[in-house]
Structures are given as C-alpha cells and as structure tokens.
C-alpha cells in the first residue's frame, strides 16, 4: 500500500503549540515551530489533503464484520462499518470502534524477542532473519508429530495456511480455540444440530423475522456469535414491521444486557432450561390438541416450574403465547448450554423449534451458510478437546508449540493447569501482537502485525444470510518492526525445503491468499466476478470481501427429532456452595479488550462499572449477609478462589452470583495488567456431552473479607440507589 512511514506525532506538537498560543490572545502568531516529518517519498495520494478509506475486516472477534478505516497521511483515524458488508451492514460494536487503540497501543510487542528466561519481562531483540531461522529449525529439527500449533479464532487465512503446512509435513492439524467459543458453547450447538437436524452446522436464528423470541440464556445482544447482526435482528424484531412490535422473553437467572431488553425476564434456576423447554412444548401440544410427541412426553409442567423456581402460571401463560405466535423462535445459548445437561437443553430447544414448525421459515431456525473455501462448518476445539491437548502437552509429547491469536494462560480454566503443561514443552514460540500472559511464558515472541496492518480473510461462520468471505487488507503500514506470521511461516517453510516448500510455493502472504481466492473466480453467485485473479483481488479489497448475492442459509429438517426421547433433567452442580456461579463475557471488553483504555472506560451496560471486575449479588441477599456495595468478598469454588468487590445488582436471583470475564490479566499491557480478577480461576473440570465446558455448573461459597474497594461507575449511586447507598 504505502512505503515505510517514519513515526510522526505532529498532532501532539500542534496541540502543545495551540496551548502556548491560546495563552496569548486566543489567536496564534503567524508561525510556530511545529515541524511535521513527512513520509520519505510520500505517495502523491497522501498529499491531496483528503482522507483515504480502506475496507477491511474486524479482528476483535471472529464474527467477521466488515470495516472501513479512515486514514489520513498514513495514520488510521477512525473505524466505520462497511455498509455493503452483509454481516454488519455499516454498523460496529464498541470493540470494533476501539480497535484503533490496539493498533496504536503503547504496549505492543515492537520487535521479535528471544526470552532467555520464561516469565521474565525482558527479552533480547533479534532480527527477522534470525527469527525465520528459529522457526525453520523448530520445523525441521523435530519430528512432525512433535510440532503443535495452537491458533485463535482469527484470522482464518493463517489457520488455512497452517493446516496446509501441517498436512504437508505430516504434523497434527492445528488446534483452534478461543474463550468466545467456550462461552458460546459452539460445540454444543453444532452437536445438537447434528442430532436434531442431522447436519453438523451452526444454527442461525432469524431473530429479525420472528414475532416472538423466547431465549433461554442466549445473550445475543452481547458478544455471542455475531453481536452486530443479531442486534440488527433485534431491531427488526421490534420495529422492522410497521405497527407490529415483536415480543421477546428471556429465561436467565441474571438480567443480562440482553435480558434487560426483553419484555419479560424470567429468572429461572440455572440448569432447568431443558425441562422448561420440554414443559412448554407439552403445554403447547396439549393446547393444540395434538398427540403428545415422545420428546415432550416425560415433561411435567408443575414439576418443571417448581424445579426452575418460577411461577407455573407464568410458564403456562408464556407457553400459550408461544403457541399462538405466528412466527415464534426459541434460542438456546449462554448459561443454558454451559451445564452438565447443556446438550439436552440445546436438543430440547431445537426440537421445540421443530415442533413449532419454524425450521427454514422466516423468523425461524436455519443452518448458517457454509462459508466460501469451506466444505462444511469446522468448529473450534471444544473445551474437552483442549483438555486432551493440554494432556498431550503435559506428557511432553510436544517439543515445540506455536501459539497465535489465543491466550490460553488467561482463557483456559485454571483447573486445566495449562501453565504446568507449558513447562513440559521445550520450546514455545508465540506470535502475539501484545505481551499477553502466554507470550510472557514463551521462549520466542515473533510479533504478528495488528489486524489493521495485515492481509487476510475471515470465513463468516454465522450472522449473514449469504455465504461471506470477509477480506482484510493493511490500512496502514506496520507501526512497529513486526512481521506477518504467514510471511514468517512461508519463509521458514521455504528454508525448510522438502515437502513443505513444495506444498507452499508462495513468496508472501498476499500470494497465498490469492491462491485461495483463485478457486472462487468461477463462482457466479458472488456480487462480483473477475476474469483473473488480480482484478478479483482488487475487487475483494475494494469491497472488503466476497459474498454471494443469494440466501445461502440451509433449511434444516427434523424428521424424527420429536420422536426421540430427550432424557432431559436438571443439571448437576459441582461444589456445595450456597450460590450458583454465573460467569459471563463482559459486554464491553469481551475476551481481548482489557488492554484498550477506552474500552476499559466504557461503562458496563447494566452495572455501569468501569476499569474493574465486580461481583453481582442480589441486594436482599447481600443485606442478609451484611454486604455493602464495594465490599470485597472471597468466592471459593472447589477449584479455586478469588476476591473482588461486590456490586449489589437488583436483577439477579438471590441464589446466584455473577462475574464478568475479561479482566484479571497479570500481563497484557499497562491498562490490563493487575486489574480485576479472572473468573476462569473458579471454573470446574466438567463438560457437557458435547464436550463444552459446563462453566455455569458450579456452586460457590461467598465470604466477607472486611475490606472494600471502590468500584468505578458511570452512575451516581446517590441518584440510582438513594441517599443512603454508599458512593
């Protein structure tokens, strides 16, 4: 794009100058000694005084939203949504907006590092040739099965490239993981789709088309699958059709941001979603006078209500509403799936949808379109698979571990003790852009570009009707001495020679991506076609990706879903505490936002807390225990303990406490480190039948410490909770 940029900061200087002149008269003297250092050989288009806009793809999560970045004289100034992009249609979430603070983050890894001693902050800088050599040796000097790749949810082109590479060298395929996948329970959704619809695909819920949405714990207005597109769906649900406001009911033990937008929030006991769903099915079946499907046969309405600790009449009423709705939709997700019976819950809810007959209909359940370059949906590793992987690491079977785009030391439950596993790996090479916990434990850190500095593509898993390959391109030239990981690996594989070299005959990242795109030239479904690869790539960059014009969602069929008896029961909980523990993804920070100061300063939507972790506790319950706002309490689960201040949250079950996930870093830059706590310390070693972590399946003790720490809030407590409440 643009040649090397020397670092410039004229705006800062200008503001200083402004201050001095402002002190005089408010109008500046004719000249000020503010020198702006221009490009060396600055390209002409950067001197026309206009901003240049580049289309790319957001890498803050795996949803693959299209962005348009405003750049001016080589600097990225503003993130805007890509209007044409079918996933987000010009909109963004806060993390997408603030991705710039990642790009210009003061704590980025600026050079390739060799860390003499793991865990120490200092490492000696090395040049990239040496780095390539290190990687080459790692690939060649070890047996193929001793090499392991651990990759994050983004970017996809790296995953593909590594897959090709490992295939060529006969190494095990790269493991792909991310905390979002864990909290979204993707494996469970896919598994349930497999059993109910006979297709292992990610269900796609047409929220916008429905007129009644009943959600069992699905936080679809928060970082869950594809926040922006689901929020658009919510908009259409409410105001999409004139004079008809779709209704929305949420079953959840805590009023999440999503539940706060529901017309009715039913605080059911955690782990009872399955029985509730089946009970509703039964009520509807009876109301319609249909023969009772075996799936619902075992359900008992009153028992379900009492198990869920909700009013049976409410349940009946809602079920009737659901039964009478024209375009009803029931969504499973969030804490409902993060239970020992998560899979049954998902099955029960999907088959309830099937019973309601909304499969493949507007406002119903679809299967997400298969992304380009894919034969089917490939889900990231489930927590169970990760546990197995950690096991192999512990055995010392892996000699060299490559880590990119994921921070297992932060994102994996402490009980998995990934740290110990890492000790048994002789060589750890991290490609982290930021000095996160895992990078700190790595022997080598070969920093990748920031997402806005890199090429790439993202296969959109869900969130759009069309099948989308979202394109990424550098919008600014690299700010630091970083190198695209794909380039690094390509160079290494060339140096390694042999099969790898012949399998990856590409000189750089772009060429590799083009080789992938070339298979799509002939695809006529796209909204553009091109005779040859270069113009195709040009369009691809210009529009920020490729997507088909039609609706590629698959209509699922549930032939005998209702005949199978779903042995759904209330879930089992580890620990004997008096509180259900409900960890949830922080709506503003998500898993990677903690190092961006402005994300830290965004108030959490429901509690308005900034800059810290809080523990949500029901006020009545807190009064019983004599706990005030800001009191630090200890939470003890069978697997660990942590301390955090309490936020007396009016809308949570008295027998439940909730903790946001996203803070509690020990490294990861000055804005994230030593701030808040990380709920994964409490999480159990417990999986549902699909292999997803039952992170909501633990009961904990709460003890007062007697200490207190002021939580930073947007709201003034005086006004919201009254004069007697502590500030």
């Amino acid at each position, binding site marked *: 794009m643009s040649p090397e940029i020397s670092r410039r900061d004229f705006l800062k200087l200008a503001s200083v100058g402004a201050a001095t002149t402002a002190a005089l008269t408010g109008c500046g003297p004719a000249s000020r000694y503010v020198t702006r250092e221009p490009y060396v050989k600055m390209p002409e288009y950067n001197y026309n005084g206009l901003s240049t806009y580049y289309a790319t793809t957001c890498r803050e999560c795996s949803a693959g939203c299209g962005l348009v970045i405003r750049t001016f004289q080589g600097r990225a100034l503003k993130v805007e949504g890509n209007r044409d992009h079918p996933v987000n249609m010009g909109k963004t979430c806060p993390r997408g907006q603030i991705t710039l603070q990642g790009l*210009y983050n003061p704590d980025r890894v600026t050079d390739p590092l060799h860390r003499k001693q793991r865990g120490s902050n200092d490492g000696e800088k090395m040049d990239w040739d040496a780095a390539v050599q290190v990687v080459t040796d790692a690939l060649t000097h070890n047996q193929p099965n001793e090499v392991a790749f651990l990759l994050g949810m983004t970017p996809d082109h790296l995953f593909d490239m590594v897959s090709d590479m490992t295939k060529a060298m006969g190494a095990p395929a790269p493991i792909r993981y991310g905390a979002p996948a864990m909290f979204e329970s993707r494996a469970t959704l896919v598994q349930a789709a497999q059993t109910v619809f006979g297709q292992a695909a990610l269900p796609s819920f047409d929220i916008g088309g429905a007129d009644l949405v009943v959600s069992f714990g699905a936080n679809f207005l928060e970082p869950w699958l594809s926040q922006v597109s689901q929020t658009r769906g919510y908009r259409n649900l409410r105001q999409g059709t004139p004079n008809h406001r779709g209704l929305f009911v949420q079953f959840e033990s805590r009023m999440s941001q999503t539940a706060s937008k529901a017309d009715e929030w039913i605080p059911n006991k955690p782990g009872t979603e399955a029985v509730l769903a089946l009970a509703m099915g039964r009520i509807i079946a009876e109301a319609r006078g249909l023969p009772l499907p075996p799936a619902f046969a075992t359900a008992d309405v009153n028992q379900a209500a009492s198990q869920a600790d909700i009013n049976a009449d409410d349940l009946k009423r809602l079920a009737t509403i659901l039964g009478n709705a024209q375009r009803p939709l029931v969504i499973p997700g969030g804490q409902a799936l993060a239970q020992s019976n998560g899979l049954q819950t998902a099955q029960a809810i999907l088959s309830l949808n099937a019973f309601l007959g909304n499969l493949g209909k507007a406002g119903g359940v679809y299967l997400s379109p298969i992304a380009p370059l894919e034969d089917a949906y490939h889900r990231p590793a489930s927590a169970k698979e990760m546990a197995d992987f950690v096991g192999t690491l512990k055995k010392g079977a892996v000699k060299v571990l490559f880590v990119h785009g994921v921070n297992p030391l932060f994102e994996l439950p402490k009980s998995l003790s990934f740290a110990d596993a890492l000790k048994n790996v002789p060589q750890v090479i991290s490609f982290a852009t930021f000095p996160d916990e895992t990078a700190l434990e790595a022997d080598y850190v070969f920093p990748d570009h920031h997402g806005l500095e890199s090429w790439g593509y993202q296969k959109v898993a869900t969130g759009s009707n069309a099948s989308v390959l979202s394109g990424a391109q550098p919008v600014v030239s690299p*700010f630091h001495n970083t190198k695209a990981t794909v380039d690094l690996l390509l160079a290494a594989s060339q140096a390694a020679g042999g099969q790898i070299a012949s399998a990856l005959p590409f000189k750089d990242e772009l060429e590799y991506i083009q080789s992938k795109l070339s298979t799509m030239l002939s695809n006529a479904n796209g909204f553009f076609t091109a005779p040859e690869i270069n113009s195709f790539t040009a369009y691809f960059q210009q529009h920020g990706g490729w997507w088909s014009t039609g609706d590629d969602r698959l209509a699922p069929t549930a032939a005998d879903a209702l005949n199978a008896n779903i042995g759904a029961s209330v879930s089992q909980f580890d620990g004997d505490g008096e509180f259900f523990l409900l960890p949830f993804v922080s709506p503003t920070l998500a898993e990677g936002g903690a190092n961006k100061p*402005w994300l830290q300063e965004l108030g959490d939507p429901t509690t308005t807390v*900034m800059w810290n972790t809080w523990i949500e506790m029901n006020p009545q319950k807190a009064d019983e225990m004599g706990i005030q706002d800001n009191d630090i309490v200890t939470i003890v689960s069978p697997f660990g303990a942590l301390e955090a201040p309490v936020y007396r949250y009016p809308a949570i079950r008295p027998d439940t406490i909730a903790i946001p996930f996203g803070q509690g870093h020990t490294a990861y830059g000055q804005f994230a480190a030593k701030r808040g706590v990380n709920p994964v310390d409490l999480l159990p070693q417990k999986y549902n039948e699909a292999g997803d972590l039952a992170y909501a399946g633990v009961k904990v003790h709460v003890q007062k410490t007697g200490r207190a720490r002021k939580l930073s809030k947007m709201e003034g407590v005086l006004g919201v909770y009254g004069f007697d409440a502590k500030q």
Partner: protein
Amino acid sequence: MANDLQLPVFTNTSEQEVSGKWGMVIDQDLCTGCQACVAACSMENNVPFVGEEDANYGRSMHWIRIERFWSGTFPEVKMTPYQPMLCQQCHNAPCEPVCPVFASVHSASEDTNLQVYNRCVGTRYCANNCPYQVRVFNWRDYTDARARPWLTSLQNQLSPDVTVRRRGVMEKCTFCIQRIHQAEQVAASENRSIADGDVTPACAQACPADAIVFGRIDDPNSRVSQAALNARGYHQLDELRTTPRITYLHGASNGSNG
C-alpha cells in the same frame, strides 16, 4: 420553583425555533445499551480517557452516556429503557446566556450550541446551568503526552478535524459539526444543497440497532422528521422550555413479569 411554574419563556421565537436545522431522534425501544455510540463518539472527537479514579469521581469525559434506572425489587424488578444522554442542542439553551465570554454560544448558521474551546476561560457556569448535565470539563491535562507518556503512540489516531482540548476548558457533543462542514463543502462543490443522509454523526453511524437517526428537522420529508412524528416521541425535561433538538421515543420499561 420558578422554572416549574408554567410561566411564558421570554425568547425570540424565530424561524429556527419552529423549524430548527439539525436534529436527532433516539429510539429507546431499540437502544440495547451496547456503548457503541460512546466508543464511536470518543474515537471521532478525540475524547480523552481519564483513568479509574477520576472516572469514579464523575470526571469521565463521555460526550454521550447511557443512563438506566431500576424500580422495584427482585423478582418484580424493572429496568428503565436505556437512555443515551448527550447535548440536546437546545434552541433556548440555558448554558449560553450564562457564559461571560461567549465561549458557549449559539450557532446562527447551524442552530446548534457551540463550545468554543479557545475562548473558554473555565468558569463552568454553563455546566452548572445545563439541566441535562451533558457538559464535561477538562479537569486535568488528559491529552498532555508529556505527563502521560502512554499517549504518545495512542495519539497517532487523533483526528485533525477536531481540536485537541487541553486542561481547563469545557466541552460537549457538537453533533459532529466537522462532518456537517465536510458534507456542506462537498455539496457546495457539487452545486447542490445537502441531501438527507449526507451527514451522519459518529454515534448514529455506529449504532448497531440503528436507534439513532440524524438529519435536517426543517425538511419535513427527512428520515429524522418522519421518525420524530412517532407517537412515542417526547423531549427530555420539556417543562424547562429549552426546545431541545433531540426527540426521544419511549421504550417499554422491561423486567420480570413485565
């Protein structure tokens, strides 16, 4: 007291008071409180972050904040719909007449409230007098990279279209006036007047639920004028007769057994 008696408000009822120029409609039924508008606003307008302590002490610099309140106790607890609160760009703005140096002044051409940073001497009278409490003050030198070394690289993203404010001046939402000017210049160079949708402030542009609509309220056919006709429409603190330019659309207060 005086301000709540139904007294006539002595003000010039000019064309603008009837028609206005720029206006906004915020649908509280759609707002999901996701903070995207806050983030977008801060990125567009070089709004500094202040850190944990100051943020907790009511010194955060958000030009737009999202409010919500609670009523009742569990299980009958309800949350009021999210309420994005930003400068209402009143026509009879209480902040304007109190400024001794015309730093808070009404824009005759755009009919918005301007805050002229370089004229501001920091008496903070305007902020006291703002019933909506949407004016934020630079309590410290939040943008001084010498005192805050971590800013040196972060400030690479500062937009040159917006002044970088320093210690001791008041600031507030400007309806992204830099975008308005840009659109006007483009339109002028194309020999046309601004069309509906030419100008979108950062918040409206980002809002994933499309809850914020912006445009010319003097054009009855514009999207915002149409939206403002909605029966759910109301003005914040209407009894003060500030003629705010932002129309809110009621959202249903939600909660359990709602």
